[in-house]
Protein backbone atom coordinates (compact mmCIF):
# COMPACT_ATOMS: atom_id res chain seq x y z
CA UNK A 1 0.00 0.00 0.00
CA UNK A 2 1.30 3.43 -0.89
CA UNK A 3 2.27 5.86 1.81
CA UNK A 4 -0.32 8.50 2.66
CA UNK A 5 0.69 11.97 3.77
CA UNK A 6 -2.19 13.34 5.86
CA UNK A 7 -1.58 16.90 4.77
CA UNK A 8 -4.52 18.65 6.37
CA UNK A 9 -4.12 16.86 9.68
CA UNK A 10 -0.42 17.72 9.68
CA UNK A 11 -1.07 21.35 8.77
CA UNK A 12 -3.63 21.71 11.54
CA UNK A 13 -1.42 19.95 14.07
CA UNK A 14 1.55 22.17 13.25
CA UNK A 15 -0.47 25.35 13.53
CA UNK A 16 -1.86 24.26 16.88
CA UNK A 17 1.45 23.14 18.31
CA UNK A 18 3.32 25.44 20.67
CA UNK A 19 6.71 23.80 20.06
CA UNK A 20 6.37 24.03 16.30
CA UNK A 21 5.12 27.60 16.54
CA UNK A 22 8.15 28.64 18.58
CA UNK A 23 10.66 26.75 16.45
CA UNK A 24 9.19 28.08 13.20
CA UNK A 25 8.98 31.68 14.40
CA UNK A 26 9.84 34.18 11.66
CA UNK A 27 10.14 31.39 9.08
CA UNK A 28 8.67 32.21 5.72
CA UNK A 29 9.49 29.65 3.09
CA UNK A 30 8.07 27.18 0.61
CA UNK A 31 9.06 23.55 1.01
CA UNK A 32 8.60 20.86 -1.56
CA UNK A 33 8.28 17.33 -0.23
CA UNK A 34 8.93 14.63 -2.77
CA UNK A 35 7.51 11.30 -1.67
CA UNK A 36 8.34 8.84 -4.38
CA UNK A 37 6.50 10.11 -7.45
CA UNK A 38 4.23 12.38 -5.44
CA UNK A 39 5.02 16.02 -4.70
CA UNK A 40 3.64 18.22 -1.94
CA UNK A 41 3.96 21.93 -1.28
CA UNK A 42 4.19 23.24 2.27
CA UNK A 43 4.02 27.02 2.53
CA UNK A 44 5.09 28.76 5.71
CA UNK A 45 4.33 32.38 6.45
CA UNK A 46 5.97 33.70 9.61
CA UNK A 47 5.82 30.27 11.19
CA UNK A 48 2.26 29.41 10.20
CA UNK A 49 1.62 26.60 7.75
CA UNK A 50 -0.62 28.35 5.27
CA UNK A 51 -0.82 25.53 2.78
CA UNK A 52 0.14 21.88 2.65
CA UNK A 53 -1.18 19.89 -0.24
CA UNK A 54 -0.24 17.64 -3.11
CA UNK A 55 0.64 19.31 -6.36
CA UNK A 56 0.94 18.16 -9.93
CA UNK A 57 2.12 21.57 -11.12
CA UNK A 58 5.58 20.95 -12.51
CA UNK A 59 6.32 24.69 -12.53
CA UNK A 60 5.50 25.29 -8.87
CA UNK A 61 8.54 26.92 -7.25
CA UNK A 62 9.93 26.10 -3.86
CA UNK A 63 12.81 27.29 -1.67
CA UNK A 64 13.70 23.93 -0.17
CA UNK A 65 13.29 20.34 -1.32
CA UNK A 66 13.05 17.33 0.95
CA UNK A 67 12.89 14.24 -1.19
CA UNK A 68 13.07 10.51 -0.91
CA UNK A 69 11.47 7.29 -1.97
CA UNK A 70 8.28 6.12 -0.32
CA UNK A 71 10.46 3.70 1.60
CA UNK A 72 12.64 6.58 2.86
CA UNK A 73 9.57 8.43 4.12
CA UNK A 74 8.10 5.30 5.64
CA UNK A 75 11.34 4.84 7.59
CA UNK A 76 11.41 8.51 8.61
CA UNK A 77 7.80 8.30 9.80
CA UNK A 78 8.20 5.03 11.69
CA UNK A 79 7.44 5.24 15.39
CA UNK A 80 10.97 3.99 16.11
CA UNK A 81 13.05 4.62 12.99
CA UNK A 82 15.92 2.33 12.12
CA UNK A 83 19.37 3.91 12.52
CA UNK A 84 20.02 7.16 10.79
CA UNK A 85 16.40 7.73 9.80
CA UNK A 86 15.85 9.36 13.18
CA UNK A 87 16.18 12.79 11.58
CA UNK A 88 16.53 14.40 8.17
CA UNK A 89 20.28 15.03 8.37
CA UNK A 90 20.87 11.37 9.22
CA UNK A 91 18.79 10.29 6.25
CA UNK A 92 20.53 12.86 4.04
CA UNK A 93 24.07 11.81 4.95
CA UNK A 94 23.48 8.08 5.14
CA UNK A 95 20.52 7.04 3.04
CA UNK A 96 20.62 9.28 0.00
CA UNK A 97 17.69 11.39 1.10
CA UNK A 98 17.53 14.74 -0.70
CA UNK A 99 17.85 18.03 1.14
CA UNK A 100 18.46 20.89 -1.24
CA UNK A 101 17.75 24.54 -1.91
CA UNK A 102 17.97 27.15 0.81
CA UNK A 103 19.81 25.00 3.33
CA UNK A 104 20.85 28.02 5.39
CA UNK A 105 17.21 28.90 5.88
CA UNK A 106 16.35 25.30 6.55
CA UNK A 107 19.06 24.77 9.13
CA UNK A 108 18.28 28.05 10.84
CA UNK A 109 14.86 26.51 11.54
CA UNK A 110 15.92 22.91 11.94
CA UNK A 111 14.08 22.59 15.25
CA UNK A 112 10.87 23.33 13.35
CA UNK A 113 11.60 20.62 10.83
CA UNK A 114 12.31 18.13 13.58
CA UNK A 115 9.05 19.05 15.28
CA UNK A 116 7.18 18.72 12.00
CA UNK A 117 8.67 15.24 11.66
CA UNK A 118 7.47 14.41 15.19
CA UNK A 119 3.95 15.55 14.31
CA UNK A 120 3.98 13.62 11.05
CA UNK A 121 5.11 10.51 12.93
CA UNK A 122 2.40 10.95 15.48
CA UNK A 123 -0.33 11.37 12.88
CA UNK A 124 1.07 8.54 10.80
CA UNK A 125 1.01 6.33 13.90
CA UNK A 126 -2.51 7.39 14.81
CA UNK A 127 -3.87 6.42 11.41
CA UNK A 128 -1.80 3.31 10.89
CA UNK A 129 -4.23 0.58 10.01
CA UNK A 130 -7.22 2.91 10.22
CA UNK A 131 -9.22 3.41 7.04
CA UNK A 132 -10.48 6.90 7.81
CA UNK A 133 -7.85 9.23 9.16
CA UNK A 134 -8.80 11.12 12.31
CA UNK A 135 -8.63 14.89 12.25
CA UNK A 136 -5.95 16.36 14.50
CA UNK A 137 -7.30 19.79 15.24
CA UNK A 138 -8.12 20.22 11.58
CA UNK A 139 -11.23 21.22 9.75
CA UNK A 140 -12.02 18.55 7.24
CA UNK A 141 -9.52 15.75 7.68
CA UNK A 142 -8.63 15.80 4.02
CA UNK A 143 -5.70 13.60 3.14
CA UNK A 144 -3.72 14.19 0.03
CA UNK A 145 -1.60 11.72 -1.78
CA UNK A 146 -2.23 8.19 -2.82
CA UNK A 147 -3.83 5.65 -0.55
Amino acid at each position, binding site marked *: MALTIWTEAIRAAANGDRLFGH*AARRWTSTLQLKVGDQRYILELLDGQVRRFEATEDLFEASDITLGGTESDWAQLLAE*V*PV*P*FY*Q*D*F*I*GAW*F*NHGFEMSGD*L*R*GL*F*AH*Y*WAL*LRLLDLMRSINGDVDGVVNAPVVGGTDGAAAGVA
Partner: protein
Amino acid sequence: MGRIAQVVGRYAYLDIDGIEYRIYYEEAGSGVPILCQHTAGAEGRQWRHFIEDPDVTSRFRVIVPDLPYHGKSLPPAGVSWWEEDYTLTKDFFEKFVVAMSRHLELDRPVYLGCSMGGHLAPDLALDYPEEFTAVIGLEAAMHSHGAEGLMNYLDHPDMSNDFRAAQMYGICAPTSPEAARRETSWVYLQGAPPVFKGDLNYYFIEHDLTGVASNIDTNRCAVYILSGEYDYSAHPELGRELADQIKGSHFVAMTGMGHFPMSENYPLFKRYVSPVLDEVSALWSESATR
Protein backbone atom coordinates in the same frame (compact mmCIF):
# COMPACT_ATOMS: atom_id res chain seq x y z
CA MET B 1 20.44 21.74 54.97
CA GLY B 2 18.89 20.85 51.62
CA ARG B 3 20.22 18.47 49.02
CA ILE B 4 23.74 19.33 47.85
CA ALA B 5 25.74 17.46 45.25
CA GLN B 6 29.12 16.14 46.32
CA VAL B 7 30.70 17.68 43.23
CA VAL B 8 33.29 20.39 43.79
CA GLY B 9 34.37 22.90 41.14
CA ARG B 10 37.86 24.45 41.10
CA TYR B 11 40.30 26.16 38.76
CA ALA B 12 43.71 24.83 37.80
CA TYR B 13 46.40 26.95 36.13
CA LEU B 14 47.93 24.81 33.39
CA ASP B 15 50.96 25.69 31.31
CA ILE B 16 50.76 24.34 27.79
CA ASP B 17 53.43 25.39 25.28
CA GLY B 18 54.30 28.41 27.38
CA ILE B 19 50.77 29.75 27.68
CA GLU B 20 48.91 29.70 30.97
CA TYR B 21 45.32 28.47 30.87
CA ARG B 22 42.90 28.84 33.76
CA ILE B 23 40.98 25.59 33.60
CA TYR B 24 37.71 24.91 35.33
CA TYR B 25 37.18 21.36 36.46
CA GLU B 26 34.76 19.47 38.64
CA GLU B 27 35.63 16.58 40.83
CA ALA B 28 33.87 14.02 42.99
CA GLY B 29 34.59 10.66 44.56
CA SER B 30 37.72 8.79 45.48
CA GLY B 31 39.65 5.82 44.20
CA VAL B 32 40.76 5.19 40.64
CA PRO B 33 41.36 8.55 38.94
CA ILE B 34 39.30 8.96 35.78
CA LEU B 35 39.50 12.00 33.50
CA CYS B 36 36.30 12.68 31.56
CA GLN B 37 36.41 14.66 28.32
CA HIS B 38 33.43 16.48 26.86
CA THR B 39 32.41 16.62 23.20
CA ALA B 40 33.08 19.32 20.58
CA GLY B 41 31.47 22.69 21.23
CA ALA B 42 30.26 21.58 24.63
CA GLU B 43 31.54 21.37 28.21
CA GLY B 44 31.75 19.24 31.29
CA ARG B 45 28.11 19.41 32.33
CA GLN B 46 27.56 16.54 29.92
CA TRP B 47 29.05 14.30 32.62
CA ARG B 48 26.77 15.47 35.41
CA HIS B 49 24.95 12.14 35.75
CA PHE B 50 28.20 10.18 35.81
CA ILE B 51 29.89 12.45 38.34
CA GLU B 52 26.89 12.29 40.66
CA ASP B 53 26.45 8.53 40.50
CA PRO B 54 27.45 7.02 43.87
CA ASP B 55 28.11 3.67 42.20
CA VAL B 56 30.86 5.48 40.27
CA THR B 57 32.17 7.93 42.86
CA SER B 58 32.45 5.22 45.51
CA ARG B 59 35.21 3.65 43.38
CA PHE B 60 36.49 6.43 41.13
CA ARG B 61 37.89 9.92 41.57
CA VAL B 62 35.99 11.55 38.72
CA ILE B 63 37.56 14.66 37.21
CA VAL B 64 35.78 16.65 34.51
CA PRO B 65 37.61 19.64 32.99
CA ASP B 66 36.31 22.22 30.56
CA LEU B 67 38.73 22.73 27.68
CA PRO B 68 39.97 26.31 27.18
CA TYR B 69 37.25 28.41 25.46
CA HIS B 70 34.60 25.96 26.69
CA GLY B 71 32.23 26.19 29.63
CA LYS B 72 33.83 28.06 32.51
CA SER B 73 37.37 27.90 31.10
CA LEU B 74 37.88 31.30 29.51
CA PRO B 75 40.28 31.94 26.65
CA PRO B 76 43.82 32.43 27.97
CA ALA B 77 44.79 35.83 29.34
CA GLY B 78 47.78 37.46 27.70
CA VAL B 79 46.99 36.13 24.23
CA SER B 80 45.17 38.10 21.53
CA TRP B 81 42.91 35.14 20.88
CA TRP B 82 40.24 37.31 19.29
CA GLU B 83 42.62 38.07 16.42
CA GLU B 84 42.82 34.41 15.44
CA ASP B 85 40.39 31.71 14.38
CA TYR B 86 39.89 29.24 17.18
CA THR B 87 41.17 25.83 16.00
CA LEU B 88 41.64 22.71 18.09
CA THR B 89 44.59 20.59 17.04
CA LYS B 90 45.38 17.02 18.04
CA ASP B 91 48.69 18.16 19.46
CA PHE B 92 47.09 20.69 21.79
CA PHE B 93 44.21 18.42 22.74
CA GLU B 94 46.56 15.61 23.77
CA LYS B 95 48.84 18.00 25.64
CA PHE B 96 45.85 19.43 27.48
CA VAL B 97 44.70 16.06 28.83
CA VAL B 98 48.24 15.02 29.76
CA ALA B 99 48.89 18.40 31.41
CA MET B 100 45.67 18.09 33.39
CA SER B 101 46.69 14.66 34.63
CA ARG B 102 50.19 15.75 35.59
CA HIS B 103 49.00 19.00 37.17
CA LEU B 104 46.70 17.07 39.50
CA GLU B 105 49.44 14.47 40.04
CA LEU B 106 47.19 11.64 38.96
CA ASP B 107 48.72 8.18 38.94
CA ARG B 108 48.17 6.70 35.46
CA PRO B 109 44.50 7.64 35.37
CA VAL B 110 41.80 6.17 33.20
CA TYR B 111 40.76 8.44 30.36
CA LEU B 112 37.09 8.50 29.30
CA GLY B 113 35.98 10.76 26.47
CA CYS B 114 33.08 11.08 24.06
CA SER B 115 32.88 12.13 20.40
CA MET B 116 36.00 14.24 19.82
CA GLY B 117 36.93 13.12 23.32
CA GLY B 118 36.28 9.55 22.20
CA HIS B 119 38.46 10.02 19.17
CA LEU B 120 41.21 11.27 21.45
CA ALA B 121 41.17 8.02 23.44
CA PRO B 122 43.04 5.92 20.85
CA ASP B 123 45.21 8.91 19.91
CA LEU B 124 46.36 9.10 23.54
CA ALA B 125 46.91 5.34 23.66
CA LEU B 126 49.15 5.68 20.60
CA ASP B 127 51.06 8.81 21.57
CA TYR B 128 51.05 8.76 25.41
CA PRO B 129 50.62 5.12 26.46
CA GLU B 130 52.65 5.49 29.66
CA GLU B 131 50.41 8.25 30.98
CA PHE B 132 47.20 6.23 31.22
CA THR B 133 46.16 2.84 32.55
CA ALA B 134 43.34 2.64 30.03
CA VAL B 135 41.43 4.80 27.60
CA ILE B 136 37.71 4.50 26.95
CA GLY B 137 36.47 6.08 23.74
CA LEU B 138 32.74 6.67 23.47
CA GLU B 139 31.84 7.14 19.81
CA ALA B 140 35.49 6.68 18.97
CA ALA B 141 36.11 5.89 15.33
CA MET B 142 38.90 5.38 12.87
CA HIS B 143 37.97 8.81 11.50
CA SER B 144 34.92 11.01 10.99
CA HIS B 145 35.55 12.37 7.54
CA GLY B 146 32.69 13.17 5.23
CA ALA B 147 30.69 15.97 6.84
CA GLU B 148 33.30 18.73 6.67
CA GLY B 149 30.96 20.65 4.36
CA LEU B 150 28.80 21.48 7.35
CA MET B 151 31.59 23.19 9.27
CA ASN B 152 31.30 26.63 7.69
CA TYR B 153 27.64 26.77 8.63
CA LEU B 154 28.20 26.01 12.30
CA ASP B 155 29.30 29.57 12.94
CA HIS B 156 27.45 31.20 10.07
CA PRO B 157 25.99 34.57 11.07
CA ASP B 158 22.59 33.56 9.68
CA MET B 159 22.33 30.67 12.09
CA SER B 160 22.03 30.80 15.82
CA ASN B 161 23.04 28.18 18.34
CA ASP B 162 19.59 26.72 17.72
CA PHE B 163 20.93 24.90 14.68
CA ARG B 164 23.78 23.30 16.59
CA ALA B 165 21.42 22.26 19.37
CA ALA B 166 18.84 20.83 16.98
CA GLN B 167 21.48 18.97 15.04
CA MET B 168 22.78 17.37 18.22
CA TYR B 169 19.25 16.43 19.26
CA GLY B 170 19.01 14.61 15.93
CA ILE B 171 22.02 12.37 16.57
CA CYS B 172 20.61 11.11 19.83
CA ALA B 173 18.77 7.81 19.65
CA PRO B 174 15.04 8.26 19.06
CA THR B 175 14.39 6.02 22.04
CA SER B 176 16.41 8.13 24.49
CA PRO B 177 14.27 9.99 27.02
CA GLU B 178 13.00 13.32 25.71
CA ALA B 179 14.13 15.27 28.78
CA ALA B 180 17.66 13.90 28.48
CA ARG B 181 17.81 14.63 24.75
CA ARG B 182 16.69 18.18 25.49
CA GLU B 183 19.31 18.53 28.22
CA THR B 184 21.95 17.26 25.80
CA SER B 185 20.98 19.82 23.19
CA TRP B 186 20.71 22.56 25.85
CA VAL B 187 24.47 22.41 26.39
CA TYR B 188 24.90 23.17 22.69
CA LEU B 189 22.87 26.34 23.08
CA GLN B 190 25.57 27.71 25.38
CA GLY B 191 28.86 27.48 23.46
CA ALA B 192 30.57 30.20 21.49
CA PRO B 193 29.79 29.60 17.80
CA PRO B 194 33.42 29.58 16.53
CA VAL B 195 34.39 27.00 19.13
CA PHE B 196 32.23 24.17 17.80
CA LYS B 197 33.57 24.74 14.32
CA GLY B 198 37.15 24.98 15.61
CA ASP B 199 36.84 21.76 17.60
CA LEU B 200 35.68 19.96 14.49
CA ASN B 201 39.04 20.66 12.89
CA TYR B 202 40.31 17.86 15.11
CA TYR B 203 37.17 15.73 14.94
CA PHE B 204 36.42 15.86 11.22
CA ILE B 205 39.81 16.55 9.69
CA GLU B 206 42.84 15.83 11.84
CA HIS B 207 41.82 12.65 13.60
CA ASP B 208 42.54 9.65 11.40
CA LEU B 209 44.15 6.47 12.62
CA THR B 210 44.01 4.71 9.28
CA GLY B 211 47.22 2.76 8.88
CA VAL B 212 48.55 3.49 12.37
CA ALA B 213 45.87 2.14 14.72
CA SER B 214 47.59 -1.24 14.71
CA ASN B 215 50.63 0.39 16.33
CA ILE B 216 48.68 0.88 19.57
CA ASP B 217 50.00 -1.45 22.25
CA THR B 218 47.22 -2.44 24.63
CA ASN B 219 49.75 -4.05 26.96
CA ARG B 220 50.94 -0.53 27.74
CA CYS B 221 47.53 1.13 27.71
CA ALA B 222 44.23 -0.76 27.50
CA VAL B 223 41.71 0.45 24.92
CA TYR B 224 37.92 0.24 25.07
CA ILE B 225 35.63 1.52 22.32
CA LEU B 226 31.88 1.91 22.80
CA SER B 227 29.70 2.92 19.84
CA GLY B 228 26.07 3.99 19.75
CA GLU B 229 23.74 2.33 17.24
CA TYR B 230 22.17 5.62 16.14
CA ASP B 231 25.35 7.68 15.87
CA TYR B 232 25.61 8.78 12.26
CA SER B 233 28.43 11.20 13.04
CA ALA B 234 30.88 8.62 14.38
CA HIS B 235 29.54 5.53 12.69
CA PRO B 236 29.48 2.37 14.76
CA GLU B 237 31.10 0.44 11.94
CA LEU B 238 34.04 2.88 12.04
CA GLY B 239 34.28 2.24 15.78
CA ARG B 240 34.32 -1.49 15.17
CA GLU B 241 36.85 -1.07 12.36
CA LEU B 242 39.09 0.85 14.74
CA ALA B 243 38.77 -1.83 17.41
CA ASP B 244 39.54 -4.52 14.86
CA GLN B 245 42.80 -2.76 14.06
CA ILE B 246 43.91 -2.49 17.71
CA LYS B 247 45.03 -5.89 18.93
CA GLY B 248 43.73 -6.57 22.42
CA SER B 249 41.18 -3.76 22.40
CA HIS B 250 37.55 -4.20 23.40
CA PHE B 251 34.49 -3.12 21.45
CA VAL B 252 31.01 -2.63 22.85
CA ALA B 253 28.06 -1.97 20.53
CA MET B 254 25.52 0.14 22.38
CA THR B 255 22.13 -0.76 20.98
CA GLY B 256 19.54 1.98 21.39
CA MET B 257 22.16 4.68 21.92
CA GLY B 258 23.11 7.75 19.94
CA HIS B 259 26.10 10.10 19.96
CA PHE B 260 25.90 11.23 23.61
CA PRO B 261 25.69 8.14 25.83
CA MET B 262 26.52 9.82 29.14
CA SER B 263 23.91 12.53 28.77
CA GLU B 264 21.18 11.30 26.40
CA ASN B 265 20.41 8.10 28.32
CA TYR B 266 22.52 7.69 31.43
CA PRO B 267 20.73 4.61 32.84
CA LEU B 268 21.32 2.73 29.58
CA PHE B 269 24.88 4.01 29.32
CA LYS B 270 25.57 2.82 32.85
CA ARG B 271 24.59 -0.71 31.85
CA TYR B 272 27.10 -0.65 29.01
CA VAL B 273 29.96 1.10 30.79
CA SER B 274 29.79 -0.61 34.18
CA PRO B 275 31.55 -3.83 33.08
CA VAL B 276 34.21 -1.67 31.43
CA LEU B 277 34.68 0.31 34.63
CA ASP B 278 35.08 -2.95 36.54
CA GLU B 279 37.84 -4.01 34.18
CA VAL B 280 39.75 -0.73 34.17
CA SER B 281 39.47 -0.52 37.93
CA ALA B 282 41.08 -3.95 38.21
CA LEU B 283 43.79 -2.96 35.74
CA TRP B 284 44.56 0.19 37.70
CA SER B 285 44.75 -1.72 40.98
CA GLU B 286 47.09 -4.27 39.42
CA SER B 287 49.40 -1.59 38.08
CA ALA B 288 49.33 0.30 41.40
CA THR B 289 50.56 -2.77 43.29
CA ARG B 290 53.49 -3.39 40.92
